[in-house]
């Protein structure tokens, strides 16, 4: 899959952050809540500077689930930028709000605690994250080499929207290493 932008006569590859942002645009996402991760730093700045995206930094991921649900009810297309550790902070809300009523949300997660993780405290939730998503029957998507990460953002939102439930995109440490 071609993943580049034209710069005059030459082309260059999009950085991981630019690819994710392209996917956010392509999915039509116009309302974003965020809790930071070091890997999301540039993306959060891009979102904050986008005039047509409402950006709400929240104090905790569970709070962000509520804000996104309200935004969806108000006609917006919501996503949450978060670290996977925040999944643990969100589970009751994802179940007793999103799943109960049929409210979609896209969680774009920096997946820490797996390959390449320098911080030992990240490891338990890193390993648990896919299992927790499986248990909750939340579909999740991981970019594979040779594919456009923007495409999985669009796919993940489309699944959330059509199935009226949460979905997730997991962006592991090696994904961000391609950052220029």
């Amino acid at each position: 899959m071609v993943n580049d932008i034209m710069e005059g006569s030459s082309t260059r590859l999009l950085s991981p952050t630019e690819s994710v942002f392209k996917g956010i645009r392509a999915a039509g996402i116009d309302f974003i809540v965020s809790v930071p991760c070091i890997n999301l730093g540039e993306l959060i700045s891009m979102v904050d500077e986008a005039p047509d995206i409402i950006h709400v930094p929240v104090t905790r991921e569970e709070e962000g689930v509520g804000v996104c649900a309200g935004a969806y009810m108000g006609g917006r297309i919501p996503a949450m930028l978060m670290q996977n550790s925040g999944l643990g902070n969100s589970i009751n809300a994802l179940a007793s709000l999103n799943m109960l009523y049929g409210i979609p949300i896209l969680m774009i997660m920096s997946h820490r605690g797996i390959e390449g993780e320098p911080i030992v405290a990240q490891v338990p939730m890193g390993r648990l994250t896919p299992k927790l998503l499986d248990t909750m029957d939340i579909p999740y998507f991981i970019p594979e080499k040779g594919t456009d990460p923007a495409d999985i953002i669009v796919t993940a939102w489309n699944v959330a929207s059509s199935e009226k439930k949460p979905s997730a995109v997991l962006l592991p440490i090696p994904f961000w290493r391609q950052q220029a």
Partner: protein
Amino acid sequence: MKRIDAITEIAAMAKDSHALLVGNIGVPCKELFSVCDMPGNFYMLGSMGLASSIGLGLALARPDKKVIAIEGDGSVLMNMGSLATIASHKPRNYLLVIIDNGSYGSTGNQPTATSRNTDLAEVAKGAGNKQIRVVDTPLDLRNILQTMDHGIIVVKAEPGNSAVPVIKMSPEGILKRFMDISSRPSH
């Protein structure tokens, strides 16, 4: 004043101003349903603590609509960070009403921290909110609701639940009816 007296005043104002109204989990939602069921009511049946967050998301998504969220002391204590997020955005169409009866009413009236030393109006102020009022009678609440269109009202109430029936709507039915109003552009 009982909680249901406060809810009666809030619902009457919401009806008059065609506001979107988010009800809090448990007995407060049932009391709202019993005193004034309206298509613009969203009954939050789970996700304790998130009524103020849902209200904030709605208010930011729909700046053309008045949005009111009803919280309790126990639920605000569970998501106090929301007061900071609201202060950061301070939408001018968003009114948060915290009915503080010092107890977890829906689980058997166990005391909350506000029955001891915690002052939620001070917490809201410390979080950066500027428009904050405290009332303790239905008449004062009615008067404040007529003049205050955004900010936070803390209503001091007595503990206790009304004998009200369960909400006879499915979660999907609640959402669909609400979104027919909340997600539709105003003309």
